[in-house]
């Protein structure tokens, strides 16, 4: 399916976002921001 975009694409939406900003904006609650832990272990330590 065609994707609609404006006449200019700024891949970063004019913002210098780090890995942690991207994950935070998605509401991910990963360990130290971008680390997955093994199944059965909590994503964040208490």
């Amino acid at each position, binding site marked *: *399916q*065609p*994707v*609609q*975009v*404006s*006449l*200019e*694409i*700024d*891949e*970063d939406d*004019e*913002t*210098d*976002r*780090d*890995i*942690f900003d*991207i*994950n*935070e904006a*998605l509401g*991910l609650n*990963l*360990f*130290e*921001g*971008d*680390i*997955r*832990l*093994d199944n059965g272990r909590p994503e*964040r*330590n208490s």
Partner: protein
Amino acid sequence: IIGNQYRWPHTIPYVLEDSLDMNAKGLILKAFERYRLKTCIDFKPWEGEANYISVFKGSGCWSYVGKRQGGRQELSIGANCDRIATIEHEFLHALGFWHEQSRSDRDDYVTIMRDRIQAGKESNFNKYDDKTSDFLNIPYDYNSVMHYSKTAFMNGTEPTIVTNIPAFIDVIGQRIDFSEYDIQKLSRLYNCSSSLSFMDTCSFELPNVCGMIQNTEDNADWQRITQVSSGPQTDHTYTGVCQETGYFLHFNTSTGNQGDRAVLESRFLYPKRGFQCLQFFYYNSGSETDQLNIGVKEYTVANPNGAYRHIETIQGSPVSYWELHHIPLNMPNKFRVVFEGIKGSTTSNGGLSIDDINLSETQCPHHVWHIRNFTELLASSPLGEAGSLYSPPFYSPEGYAFQIALYVNGTTSPFNLAIYLHLISGANDNTLQWPCPWKQFTMVLLDQHPDIRQRMSNLRSITTDPNEVDFSGNYYWDRPDKVGTEATFPNGTKFMRGPRSGTSVFLTHQRLKSRDFIKDDSIFILATVDDISHLISTEPNLTATSAPTTNQVATTTTSMVDVCIDYGCKNNGTCVIVDRKPICRCPAEVDWWYMGEKCEEKGTRQDIAVIAVASSLCVFGVMLIITIVTTCCLKKKYKKQMQANRSLELKNATSF
């Protein structure tokens, strides 16, 4: 992370899942190339190995730390994660690295400002003791690609991490490339002694000139010097740092006769991959008829003394700056690189100079955009369109014309370098496919460090998606004479420039002024265009795969699909083609696996335990029988002997 169970083999099997964006797929392969250049870590398409990394487009950018021994190990490169340093960062996690600021000695180097951290996010600033995490005897690295930036998880505007040496506050959090210490740490963790694609580097600082030799059949020599009155005034290695310190090689053409030759040969080089890129800096202060010939001497069984092959001639008007040259080589056998200077017919006041040579088994960039007097541009360029610089028109290997636009002082923020790609109208437009399908345009701001292994060049890629449309319903990557606007080259020629795609936050001025991005008052933007349409389908479970290509990507081939369908792997086995024959790769987990020609048999850890116990019992039983039989035999033997002795004793007693 401490523990050998977390280490991968030096060649890591991977799968690029089809969910990934095309740009991400291409960039992951480029990140692998950086690993190959700087470390001994290599990557290969998964062929049924028990453990492998499966890269997919999940939500966000994340990875596990180290090998988890769980078969398929996920690594997510989600939306906006398709940046080369982000990919390097996530793969470093997968290889066994935590974040730099979580090392056990971090409090000596940074201060965590707890009151500035968002509520509930404090656990992101963990520190591990030296029983869990090993910093491998490498100093704390503010420049690590694994370090948080000063703004990580902050609740206001004040930094959450303050460096104990204030000069490093804006250094932390770089997302350009591996730092020198990142490479050292990775090399120590995986016992690397060499890398896969690096071959040689030479800045001529040492008198042994990196083992290069002067050919004896010429009539002039290259000289190792620090300065030539007519230029260069300094070498390239230390330009802007020290004068009369660094050395370069010079062939003086201001004296001698027309046709005089100076031939320099590298030491023997042993290729592994069959393709190489020779990169060097060149200064011509001689005449427009002086020549620099680049060639190779290839050593084979048929030519044990080496067969010379000319590759390229560099000739042109004298200039007053160092130029950058790339020469692609395709050497499968032992070889030497040959630099041949030839004095031309016209008067020369100087000569030919070379410096900072690098040879690696990588692809050369297709184009170099050299921007001179850059410091002045940085100081004077206005914000926005008025401060834009457009590259000369370049052509991709297929013939698409394009232009790079650089905004020295940014498009929106004054302290950022912004970079964009435009397709432009070109000579081949009528014969090309439109909208331009799946071409990955890579733009690299070169870090001009003399040693390619220590460079941290800033790279961004733009991929043309033929399905993208703008708000008017036009295809974004359609013919520039259809969707573009009129523009004019400096010589007055009119052309059409398509819409732009890129980033307004390519690099901050602060980072631009660090390292060797600006040297000899010049920057170099390297441009490469790769056709990545073969990456549309990269998952191996599409029934059949062909042998890996040079980019080591598994690609599907229709003719082989039928062979695999007929072959019929059982129990979800994956059919792969090896040497044009179908082979089943069987699924396996830690506790069970399938085996057999078509994965028809199941094995479990329990089976092994049963076999081991049964074997032990069997051996024990046999040994017990042998012992009983031996004991019985010995008992019988000694009984007979004792009886014989007793009768003898009785006989003797009677005779007395």
